[in-house]
């Protein structure tokens, strides 16, 4: 039977994981404290996209398919 954790613990665990993941970013790219604690998920996502220069037009579920000319066989 799965353990039904109280939502408060679930929240703390998820937030902890989020912070650990954000700490994987280099210091100059990390979101501000205010963004982490008071920002909306959308704001945080935009921050990360900007930090890694992810273009708005590219969709998350798209896999870029790049054909390098020097790899094309004649």
């Amino acid at each position, binding site marked *: 039977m799965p353990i039904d*954790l*109280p*939502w*408060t613990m*679930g929240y703390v665990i998820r*937030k*902890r994981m989020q912070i650990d993941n954000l700490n994987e970013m280099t210091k100059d790219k990390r979101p501000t404290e*205010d963004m982490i*604690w008071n920002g909306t998920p959308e704001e945080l996502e935009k921050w990360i996209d900007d930090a890694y220069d992810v273009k708005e037009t590219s969709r998350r579920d798209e896999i870029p398919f790049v054909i390098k000319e020097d790899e094309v066989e004649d």
Partner: protein
Amino acid sequence: MDIEKNDVDLSKLFLWNKEVEIKDEAGNVVKTVWMRLVGDADLNRARVISLRESAKARESLKTETSDEYMAYIAPLKFSSKENITAGIKLLNMGNYMDEARANVITKFPVEPASDASLEEQEKYQKIIDDFPIKWEKDLDKELKKIDKRESSRLDVMDEDALKKEYVDGLINYICQTSMNDTFHSYCTYFGTYEDAKFRRKAFRSYDDYSNISPRVKQMLEDAYRDLEIPIPQLKKSLGATP
């Protein structure tokens, strides 16, 4: 946002259930139930149901023939401009507070290095102790600024525009209240059990729960509220484990 670092208490996170005695008006225990904080699944169910309730309330308030419209919206035509203006400000108080909180950037003191002298640590603790007072003062100043700006904005609006803003605000307020009440009611219903092992629900259905006396319902909902840790407190508890 509460930015104190002093009263972080992680132990409360683990106090997530308790025994609740239901007492009659004379104070005699008539039944004992066990209550626990709901998990993510029930929390989400409560959220979805309360959103539907809020949508129902919104629709009624916008229908001119409904009882809700007659009770809350129709009397507006007898209100004076001053009353409507005061009403708008009152209804927007939460938004003003959010705006003020977002605008107030009181720089949090930099923590001394781990090998800092005792005196440096004492100084830092003093700043931490005084921080909430300074922050509240800044917040109060910002709120006054927003109030002045809003007074000027509302003063130049004509009565129809004022009425529209008041009605929109009132509908949002009533729907928000309806959503919060329903959400809390459902969480209490989902989290109340007959046994200490949390296997048998205390109520067979939400209707059964709704039909209990308002006094007992209030007692149960207060007990549930007491178990909950508000999100700002949860955020503070995380600060203790960098």
